[in-house]
């Protein structure tokens, strides 16, 4: 099981316990990994630990993944959160709005951002969208245009949530 990537197995609701066969003192750990170890109690989920340690979702999952690969933690329960998928029409709207702001490079910027965030359009979770919009916004140098883009996309995000 440890050979598999944790990212495929669990998400923020997964709960872990410390390994009964391997102790953290047997390996060298970074301070962030130690911080995770101190929080694992068989009750807190990845999401809970991320919140307590002020980690982003990706940071937390990567750190848990590292500890899992080292055999220091074991999965206690995997209650995969239900993903709400983003419809492809959202990306069309995104491309259309971004093109109005930055011109024909918009689709390339969207593709680059998706690539950086390891997101596939076909299976994109709604919860990833604000982070993606924020990352794209950072590439808009004009402050007024950036806010204009965020205004439109904020409305689109609200529509996604209510859909």
């Amino acid at each position: 099981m440890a050979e598999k990537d944790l990212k495929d197995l669990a998400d923020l609701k997964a709960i872990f316990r410390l390994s009964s066969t391997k102790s953290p003192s047997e390996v060298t750990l970074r301070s962030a990994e130690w911080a995770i170890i101190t929080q694992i109690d068989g009750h807190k989920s990845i999401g809970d630990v991320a919140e307590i340690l002020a980690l982003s979702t990706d940071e937390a999952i990567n750190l848990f993944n590292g500890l899992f690969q080292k055999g220091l933690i074991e999965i206690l329960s995997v209650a995969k959160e239900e993903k709400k998928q983003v419809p492809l029409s959202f990306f069309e709207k995104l491309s259309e709005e971004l093109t109005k702001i930055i011109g024909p490079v918009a689709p390339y910027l969207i593709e680059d951002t998706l690539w950086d965030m390891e997101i596939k359009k076909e299976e994109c979770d709604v919860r990833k969208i604000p982070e993606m919009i924020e990352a794209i916004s950072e590439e808009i140098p004009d402050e007024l245009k950036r806010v204009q883009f965020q205004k439109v996309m904020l409305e689109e995000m609200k529509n996604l949530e209510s859909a």
Partner: protein
Amino acid sequence: MADRWLKEVNKVDGVEGVFLASSKGKILGKLGTLYPQDTLEKLITHLQRIIAAFQVAGKNATEIEFYWEDRYVICKHSANFLLVTFCKSAKVLSLLRITLNVVLANILEDKKFAKISSSNAIDKTIALRKGFFESDEQLLISKLK
């Protein structure tokens, strides 16, 4: 007045409270669960000093974010006012930052609010000349020089 916009921020999941303060330190509007008035005033002074320190150094800090008492504090500011939000969850920070940018732009377009906030405006650098500095404030100012 700006209540509509404060509501917009406050309804983001994980946001506990939000307030608007003039650069004089007067609270112009608030919503949600917030700290007592005196704590908020101390916080405003602290934020004003950070903004002023950057201003004196010829830099512009448009947004200040820090983690304080188990909460994320995000302060957006314009020439005449501060918009300060307390948020419990890291998961919503991206959505919250986007919402705050949009809300700030909308508040700036509100002529009625602009009138009130400008009548309560003050040169932020005055905050740097008042009272004693705490060690972390001194450290920041020395780094900016």
